[in-house]
């Protein structure tokens, strides 16, 4: 991939390809973009030195990158857990705020982080976890072959969309309710301006 996109672009893409294109192709208002990313806000602790919990090293705000997927970004937390062969196994942890359940795109996002770690460190990253909701719950995510293939496919589609620099048409749905780009996107506005124009010209 000759272009790298932020990991958050993948998450936007999975939520709604059009929202992703409005942000990454159309570059709609920055201020809207930040509110859109509010959905992705993590309880990101300041990046400091890696801490330890028991036998596990925890590093926060870890920069990531994958040339194969064409993505870069930051993981909330990467734990280094002792593996069976004595080498440490990275274990990415993502914190979710807001929605009370883990969605497919959250899993894909975490899997993409794991694939970045694998490429950067040359080790296998078999699983990770998502913390979410109140009361705090934790869901383990296994990065199986199906999830990985899905992530690769999504990345290809995402890059193709940004490369074409075309914004997909709006498809109004439930997800529009929580989308801060709604006013720019106008999901339910008719794309057929001509009828509106003729009505306005009626005697």
């Amino acid at each position, binding site marked *: 991939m000759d272009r790298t996109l932020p990991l958050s672009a993948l998450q936007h893409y999975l939520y709604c390809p059009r929202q992703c294109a409005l942000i990454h192709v159309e*570059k709609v208002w920055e201020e809207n973009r930040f509110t859109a990313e509010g959905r992705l806000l993590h309880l990101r602790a300041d990046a400091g030195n890696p801490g330890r919990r028991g036998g596990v090293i925890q590093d926060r705000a870890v920069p990531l990158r994958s040339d194969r997927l064409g993505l870069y970004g930051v993981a909330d937390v990467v734990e280094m857990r002792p593996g069976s062969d004595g080498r440490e196994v990275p274990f990415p942890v993502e914190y979710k705020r807001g929605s009370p359940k883990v969605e497919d795109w959250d899993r894909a996002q975490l899997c993409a982080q794991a694939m970045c770690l694998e490429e950067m460190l040359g080790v296998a990253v078999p699983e990770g976890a998502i913390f979410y909701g109140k009361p705090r719950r934790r869901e383990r995510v296994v990065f199986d072959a199906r999830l990985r293939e899905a992530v690769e496919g999504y990345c290809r589609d995402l890059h193709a969309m940004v490369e074409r620099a075309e914004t997909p048409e709006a498809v109004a749905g439930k997800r529009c309710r929580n989308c801060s780009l709604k006013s720019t996107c106008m999901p339910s506005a008719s794309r057929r*301006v001509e009828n509106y*124009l003729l009505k306005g010209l009626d005697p």
Partner: protein
Amino acid sequence: MKKLLNTLYVTSQGTYLSKDGECVVVRAEDGVKRRFPVHVLDGIVCFGNVLCSPFLLGHCGEKGLAVSFLTERGRYLAGVRGPQSGNVLLRRAQYRLADEAEASSRLARAIIAGKIANSRAVLRRCLRDHRNRVDALAMNGAISMLDACAERLRHPVSLDEARGMEGQAANAYFAVFDNLILAEDRTFHFEGRNRRPPLDAVNCLLSFVYTLLAHDVRSALEAVGLDPQVGFLHRDRPGRPGLALDIMEEFRPFLADRLVLSLINRGEVRARGFVSKESGAVFMDEDTRKTVLTAWQKRKQEEVAHPFLKERISLGLAFHVQAQLMARAIRNDLDGYPPYFWR
């Protein structure tokens, strides 16, 4: 939806504006200071001899606030904008379309449709409300003329036709504009548009309010990443904000003109608030100017239902919505530009 923010209008001569943290500090000539947090503003308009520190200008640029400098009488001098932001794809698409006669004529048709429908709506409203006080024959003549333009616009028109129609419609509309002025005072008699300088009180008010409208439309276009200079109906002329003039067209009748009419008809501006120069040029005094600015700000806060989006917005946001719709049309996300039809 974006929040409607306030524009800071500075009319006191000798005022100095500077930055202090996240605040604009306004220091009047007598030393009195007032502060405004930057985040409640979306623009600053300075009239006459008002100075701004470069750090404030830089800060406004960074935060996307438009700063405009006008003469004391409201003629545009210059604007300060921050580093170019927005979307190069969008601007390139805009330039490409402006170079294509067919694409330009489609957008020009929509722009002129907005202007003609809204001019007609303003005349009709007046005829309905004041049937006994106006020259109904002349009014109906102008309305029929606009009807004929509207009928013609149901089909594609060439750029030349659209531009010709704009002139015709404006002439017909301003020919009966005096009927819309119900004040008895002859000071507010209107005989036709004149400008630079305006030669009577009504033209003076119209020109001033058009300047305010231009500032707001221009900032809205810049905010969505469009180039206000490159229009479709209004051809490129160096220094002329073509696209801002395009988008202004639909707002002139129902927003700018009606504001001027209500100020006159309700007696909120008085003959004694205007000064004639030896040359015949007419200007407002400072109090009158403040009255107009206050009325403009208030009007922008009124809630309306946007005719295309069907959403309730404050009227001041309509500029942003229209700029956004123009951007979507240019990027081919909509199959044309939907003007703001006033009902």
